[in-house]
């Protein structure tokens, strides 16, 4: 197989994802309602309760909306990735997965490309969300929108790979409600998405350490720092490292027979 074959395959998978996105654009638009509710309603309510001191990467006092916007970008990717991974092996995407796995190109390449393609669509949603966030005065520097892109790509690949790993290996979590309760909510709430970790440390040191061990925390911090044009090597390094590890585990450990790719009841 030559590089051109890989390239055509990569482009083909991306194109299909965008075509599907375009077909289902109303569904994707409605997926923006959740983070917007958090930003507009939850943040307005919490602003009065929670004082934010000056913490990096911000160089002044910021509103709570500004604080949680990067976390909500992470949330968009988190929900999409989990939903996408489940649909790959249990649901809407089963047909396309069968076709995907009939490709002569190596499976890890196909799966990572598929996860990246789904991630790109999530990232599109993140940008629409960030544009709407301008309405509540979340105004990162202009170059921040570009600088945040690598962190968004890493986050989407990391969470997509995690979703695929879970969907393949944890039978009990084959429906979205299970994943929401046992993966999405714990990852989201036990992270720096909604509150700075120094405040968590004051409230409960052991919870603080759980948050520190949660890779989603570092993904959110990588998004936060790069959006404000600050370099955070630790957040970026941990996110990249965990992404590489999860992508390897999810693709090398992918077993179609543990999913419904072959059919609902093979016999």
């Amino acid at each position: 197989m030559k590089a051109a074959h890989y390239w055509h395959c990569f482009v083909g998978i991306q194109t299909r994802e965008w075509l599907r996105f375009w077909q289902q654009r109303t569904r994707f638009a409605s997926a923006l309602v959740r983070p917007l509710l958090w930003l507009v309603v939850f943040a307005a309510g919490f602003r009065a309760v929670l004082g934010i001191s000056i913490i990096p990467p911000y160089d002044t006092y910021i509103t709570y909306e500004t604080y949680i916007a990067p976390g909500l970008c992470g949330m968009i990717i988190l929900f999409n990735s989990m939903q996408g991974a489940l649909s790959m092996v249990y649901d809407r995407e089963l047909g396309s997965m069968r076709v995907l796995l009939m490709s002569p190109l190596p499976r890890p390449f196909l799966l990572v490309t598929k996860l990246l393609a789904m991630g790109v669509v999530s990232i599109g949603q993140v940008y629409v969300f960030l544009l709407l966030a301008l309405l509540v005065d979340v105004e990162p520097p202009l170059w921040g929108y570009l600088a945040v892109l690598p962190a968004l790509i890493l986050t989407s690949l990391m969470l997509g790979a995690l979703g695929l790993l879970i969907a393949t290996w944890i039978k009990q979590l084959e429906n979205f409600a299970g994943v929401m309760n046992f993966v999405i909510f714990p990852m989201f709430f036990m992270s720096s998405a909604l509150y700075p970790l120094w405040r968590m440390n004051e409230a409960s040191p052991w919870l603080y350490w759980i948050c520190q061990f949660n890779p989603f925390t570092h993904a959110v911090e990588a998004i936060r720092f790069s959006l404000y044009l600050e370099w955070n090597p630790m957040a970026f390094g941990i996110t990249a490292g965990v992404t590489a590890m999860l992508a390897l585990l999810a693709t090398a450990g992918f077993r179609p027979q543990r999913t419904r790719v072959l059919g609902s009841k093979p016999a």
Partner: protein
Amino acid sequence: MTIEASNLSFRYGDRPVLREVSFALTSGRFHALLGPNGAGKSTLFGLLTRLLALQQGELRLAGQSLKHQPAEAMRQIGVVFQQNALDLDLTVRQNLQYHAALHGLSRKEGRARGDRELERFNLLERANDAVRQLNGGHRRRVEIARALLHEPSLLLLDEPTVGLDVASRKALNEHVRTLCEEDGLTVLWATHLIEEVREEDRVLILHQGQLLADGNGQAICDAEGTRDLAETFHALTGAG
């Protein structure tokens, strides 16, 4: 190009689904894999398409182990699955182009080959229709056209007529037989419907994971002392 299976066994947990199955397909021929529901046909297809990992036994494609030459095997095999594997909201052409890209073909090449197949299948005028607008028989034809896009030498069809009415089933079966004759394709057609099988076909009868008969349909009937394949199938499996 042909495929050889030797001593294939497969189990889901404690439940054996295939037991010591061995056969070799004849190049350029129509093979019917006949078996009642639950015989192990889909599991066998899972192994042939690498969706299931081999547990015991070996599969060889043109003498090369499938396990060690997965890319070459996937280039030579075209598959039509039992369940629909088309994107219903995308157009026929978009579906074909996705498959072409997965086989490393450029957009231009994918479109050219897709249109060529659609023309051959009398579906070119439907190229820009969403698959959702097509009837069941046409959708199946699109899936076959797609499976042939990368010019494989072996076409595997896992109960491709499920959900079709009698006329469409017959037409689809005829269609694949024509492809087999005209293109020299090796075809493996899995079914539980005896009317889709002819006595001149090479017939493999699978029941409870075991291959009970393998040979020319007429020869199997002679060996079993039965009048026709329906009687043979009933005698061997209790079905039909």
